[in-house]
């Protein structure tokens, strides 16, 4: 580009230089012609009895003059003025001194600088046009060529990379191209996606099999025990023992179920296709937990906006998330305590839900590990198997949200769930 600009700028001087130089050459050619004519036909061919000879074209563009030389002059080509029939014009003159028949003669051949330059402008324009034309043509050809060359690449991007949803279940067909690099890129992408798909399927199969293998013996035990319970010969003492066995089995069942649940969440086996109103879901959760709230006389307040909806989430998972958090808030609350749900929208950035309780709180050194599996509060033994918050964490990660906790021992805790603003919509 720079070269082109430079060229365009230098063009006038270049053209001028070329035409001048050519003219000088022309003048010396003329001189040679004259000298050879003189040598052939004698100087009288020109002088014709006169001592000097001058001739010029009609519009005084060119002249030639021949006269006895006074002093010896070297050959020169110069630009100077001459008067031709009362007209003073600028000429490019070739001055040549030669010797003929014992006489020195001065030969001048001149051409107006105007004439010399008359084609300059034309030449410049012409060159410029050709240059522009060539540039445009080159650019066009480049564009067309690269478009054709890069077409397979564009196709790869549009068919394989845009709008791809994990786990890449749709069938992938190789694109047609003869370029080795593109073929390689394409086949690598296909193979990569197929591997991901396979791994995902394997993982799902594993979870499914694990579920089957773990739940089947539990199922057998459960039915055994249930049938045992209903035998007529069983006395009360035995019934109590059997009932206790049932409780233990139930505990095992719940833990296995929770672990499998976490496994499925982490293997992305749930679809994020629902649009959810959090106020609605949290109200449903509250209804499920009504009895517990009443038993502890807990005051429950839901200030989550009814107008906010969240897109691309899984409703069942969000229900479970809120259930676990609110259940915890109840469990670790004091009698006559309170639970408060609120939210905060920072436009263009985040939407946060707060679950605040006035419970026993969490110790500062326990805070970092509360989401670990099987972690239970040290303050409070008994209910719960320690997986509630792990499930919450998995669901939060799965959706691409964030969860934060702050707590004051004996005063209460606040759990915050931060949702990116692009998933949030406000109803009118």
């Amino acid at each position, binding site marked *: 580009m720079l070269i082109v600009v430079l060229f365009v700028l230098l063009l006038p001087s270049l053209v001028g230089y070329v035409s001048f130089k050519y003219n000088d050459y022309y003048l010396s050619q003329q001189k040679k012609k004259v000298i050879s004519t003189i040598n052939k036909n004698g100087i009288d061919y020109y002088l014709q009895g006169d001592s000097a000879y001058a001739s010029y074209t009609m519009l005084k563009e060119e002249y030639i003059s021949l006269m006895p030389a006074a002093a010896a002059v070297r050959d020169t080509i110069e630009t100077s003025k001459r008067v031709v029939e009362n007209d003073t014009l600028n000429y490019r003159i070739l001055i040549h001194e030669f010797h003929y028949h014992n006489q020195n003669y001065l030969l001048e051949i001149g051409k107006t600088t105007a004439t010399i330059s008359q084609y300059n402008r034309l030449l410049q324009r012409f060159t410029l046009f050709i240059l522009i034309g060539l540039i445009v043509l080159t650019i066009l050809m480049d564009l067309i060529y690269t478009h054709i060359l890069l077409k397979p690449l564009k196709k790869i991007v549009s068919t394989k990379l845009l709008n791809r949803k994990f786990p890449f279940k749709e069938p992938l067909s190789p694109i047609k191209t003869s370029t080795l690099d593109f073929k390689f890129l394409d086949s690598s992408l296909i193979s990569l996606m197929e591997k991901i798909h396979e791994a995902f399927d394997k993982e799902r199969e594993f979870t499914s099999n694990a579920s089957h293998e773990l*739940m089947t013996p539990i*199922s057998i035990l459960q039915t055994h025990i*249930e049938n045992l319970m209903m035998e007529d010969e069983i006395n009360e003492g035995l019934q*109590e023992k059997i009932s206790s066995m049932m409780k233990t089995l139930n505990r095992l069942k719940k833990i296995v179920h929770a672990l499998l649940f976490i496994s499925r969440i982490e293997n992305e086996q749930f679809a994020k296709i629902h649009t959810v109103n959090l106020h609605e879901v949290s109200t449903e959760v509250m209804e499920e937990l009504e009895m517990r709230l009443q038993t502890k006389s807990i005051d429950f307040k839901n200030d989550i906006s009814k107008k906010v909806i969240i897109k691309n989430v899984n409703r069942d998972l969000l229900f479970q998330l809120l259930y676990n958090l609110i259940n915890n808030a109840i469990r670790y609350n004091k009698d006559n305590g309170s639970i408060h749900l609120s939210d905060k929208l920072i436009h263009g950035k985040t939407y946060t839900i707060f679950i605040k309780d006035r419970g026993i709180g969490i110790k500062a050194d326990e805070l970092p590990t509360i989401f670990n599996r099987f972690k239970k509060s040290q303050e409070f033994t008994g*209910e719960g198997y320690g997986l509630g918050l792990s499930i919450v964490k998995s669901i939060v990660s799965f959706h691409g949200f964030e969860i934060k906790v702050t707590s004051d021992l004996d005063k209460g805790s606040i759990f915050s769930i931060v949702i990116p603003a692009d998933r949030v919509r406000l109803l009118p």
Partner: protein
Amino acid sequence: MKVLIIEDERTLAREMKIFLEKAFYLCNNAYTAGQAKQLMEQNEYDFILLDLGLPDKDGLELLNSTKKMCAGASYIILTARGNLEDRIKGLDLGADDYLAKPFSLLELQSRMHAISRRKSGNNDPVLELADFHIDLNKRIVRFQENEIELSRKEFDLLSYMLLHKNRPLTRLQLSEHIWGNFSDDDYDSNFIDVHIKNIRKKMSAYASVEWLQTLRGIGYKIKM
């Protein structure tokens, strides 16, 4: 009623048979899809309990191929695989219900009962419970002409216990039926006591509720 239990886990199949026979169902066991098909060709069944994890064929495939053969039967899918797709696919293929293992036998019977009621047009006769009458359709308990108001959960509890009358029912079994399975603790079990107390209180205002027995350390039973 005739029931076909298609389950490859023999111990489980046996327990199911024992339980259902006590509830006066006639049961056949099939341990493979092949056996199941044979039995279905020979007999008419009212209920087909289908495990999805069969050794020789996928349960859903079997369901698909036999649905036409045994059109009058109600299918209940049982599976330990825990896939949501199984449930959706099964119900789409025409199954009447889906139970995830491990399930309670009481729950199984309850579901079968609900399907029967639905299929007979929800035209149940009113049930007698000592001096009371239970109208399952309108969900009302009556003493002579008086209507006794029970909350939704209280009514569910009472009708469940009535369905499984003369059987000891643990708090756990009762609360799982009423509240399902969201939480990871046994907290709900204690609420059963509250509900039973309420039921007793409301109904004893009219007549004796001696038939509603507390089993110390275990749960409750309706004795008739």
